[in-house]
């Protein structure tokens, strides 16, 4: 990707919106629009064609799932657009809906995550370039909500940790860094997981997430 990442922000809380703009500008992003409701977001994205949109789930007029609806609609209109949903709560149903057909360029994070600025910025960059960023909370809930939770129990503790990080969209190197193990060890765990789940191994980050989610969804 050339030049700074272009970001649209839809967040109805002014204090948070301003904070996000300040943070992202500080980190070298270009803000193409910072708006407070879904309609303005549609206009802004249509005009500016950003790389990624950060969308609050609860927005006017009903403060329920307007952001999610807007995200699905934008995804249909602009397939290349990265979407980072941003919410105070994680709703399993929202996550499932969002990830229904493709996890590429999708993120779903708790708002709390902005406190760890670097992680947040990294996740946003990942989504902008077609990767995935799922909140650990989302993973936990999806694992919990899965009807095949018992299958998860065939995994060792370390393999579960690797699976969670994998589902967040992390690379093997990042997983190794997070768990303080070598990349080789991570690769071994991933291979074990896929073997236990009976899934073909793949190199690409988001396709691994896809595989995991498809497994969870089945």
């Amino acid at each position: 990707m050339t030049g700074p990442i272009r970001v649209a922000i839809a967040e109805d809380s002014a204090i948070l919106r301003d904070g996000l703009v300040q943070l992202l500008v500080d980190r070298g992003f270009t803000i193409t629009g910072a708006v407070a409701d879904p309609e303005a977001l549609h206009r802004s994205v249509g005009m500016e064609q950003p790389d990624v949109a950060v969308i609050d789930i609860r927005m006017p007029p009903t403060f329920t799932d307007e952001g999610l609806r807007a995200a699905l609609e934008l995804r249909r209109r602009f397939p290349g657009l990265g979407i980072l949903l941003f919410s105070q709560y994680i709703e399993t149903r929202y996550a499932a809906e969002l990830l229904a057909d493709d996890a590429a360029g999708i993120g779903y994070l708790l708002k709390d995550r902005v406190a760890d600025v670097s992680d947040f910025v990294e996740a946003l960059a990942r989504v902008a370039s077609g990767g995935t960023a799922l909140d650990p909370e989302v993973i936990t809930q999806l694992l919990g909500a899965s009807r095949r939770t018992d299958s998860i129990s065939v995994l060792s503790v370390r393999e579960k940790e690797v699976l969670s990080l994998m589902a967040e969209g992390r690379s093997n190197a990042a997983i190794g860094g997070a768990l303080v193990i070598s990349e080789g060890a991570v690769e071994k765990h991933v291979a074990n997981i896929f073997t236990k789940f009976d899934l073909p191994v793949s190199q690409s980050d988001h396709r691994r997430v896809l595989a995991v989610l498809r497994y969870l969804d089945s």
Partner: protein
Amino acid sequence: MTSPQTPSTAAQLRELFKQMVNVATEDRADRFREVALVIWREPFARRTWSEFSFVAIGGPLAAVGAAFVACTLWAGILLTITFFGLAIVALSVRGARGIGGWHRQLAHNLLGEDIAEPEPFVARPGFLGWLQSSLRDRTGWRSMAYIALKLPLAILAIVAGFAFWWDAFFCLAFPVLGGRGNNVPAFGAPNLLFGNGFFSGGQFSGGQFGFLHEVAIFLVGILLFFAAPWAVRGVVYLDRRVMRVMLAPDALSVRVRSLEEARAQTVDTSAATLRRIERDLHDGTQAQLVALAMRLGMAKEKLDDSEHLDLDQVRQLVGDAHQGAKEAIVDLRDLARGIHPPALDIGLHGALSTLAARCMVPTELTATLAERPTPAIEAIAYFCVAELLANVAQHAQASRASVACTENSGWLRIVVRDDGQGGAQLSRLGSSSSGLAGLTDRVHAVDGRLAIESPPRGPTVVTVDLPLHA
């Protein structure tokens, strides 16, 4: 005092007295004309014939109902030793409820008597549930009691209606049709009035069906004709009274229904309140804290990056975060106070004096409370006063306000008064759930009352009555 005016005064008095007598006489004449007119019109009035239809249709229905109840109850009791007995009694109660409904419908259609509909029958699941619900159906049993009472009433009504009307027409027709036979098929109203043998001849004309006899009977016919509507009306009146008691929902069901409504309202209100609190937390405090954490996170990372450290930027970020934290604290305090005012911990009086002192309009508080209301009542009282004083400050353009809080035989009365422009209405004052309309719901939920008296140009007086214990 001997003045020349005395005789004239006496004359005046006499004149006045004469006038009064005249007026009285005229009044009486008027009244008499009125009554005569009513009596004259009544046999032809629509109401009379509606009532007659009610008697004519209700009579057979009463007979059918009584027969049904008698048969089923009898069969049920005979079979009590078997399980079927109970089932038949249950059927009897359910049937009685239905028949009661017919009577109520009849009264509504023909008499314009609107008797409140009882709660619909709700059976518990399963046959045993149905049995139990049916046997415990108070409405059904009360309908059954009505059916039992209705039978004598219906007989009385038939006797009154048919005896009077039939005999009236018979007597009126007597000069034309009568005289030919000694057998007179009268229902007996004249017999009741004038003794047996009235028609058998000779009563008026020495054993012969003479002209005088015929005239007398014709006159009796006229009398009966104009008396008949009133006889029917009397019986129907009795029936109405019985129906109002037996076919309407009883006091207990009415109470249960109103409690159910109040409970539903309370549940709705508390759900709305919780949603409002969640919204406030979500949009306010939570967003503030996220923004705060974000600024601190940025500051932290800038501090970590010692090579490009820009202290001014960090100072700015920390300053913003500090400001945000203080704002979050204030918002959180306001929110907490809205959920439960901490001032209430020291009692209603203390809490109200804080409210009165904080009001923008000078407010005087008088409170005499010997007994402390329960916490829920105190909270409702507090929020009422808070909302009312907020309204006074916002809308009333008042220069003074007062809050009086008294206790009287188990009730707490709060009167909020202002000398403002008046014209306050429930609908205008309270649009949201936190407004006055919301308060009315909360007051009703504990069987309290909220009354607004606010004529144009004021003053506005709002009275809230709450039970001390809820």
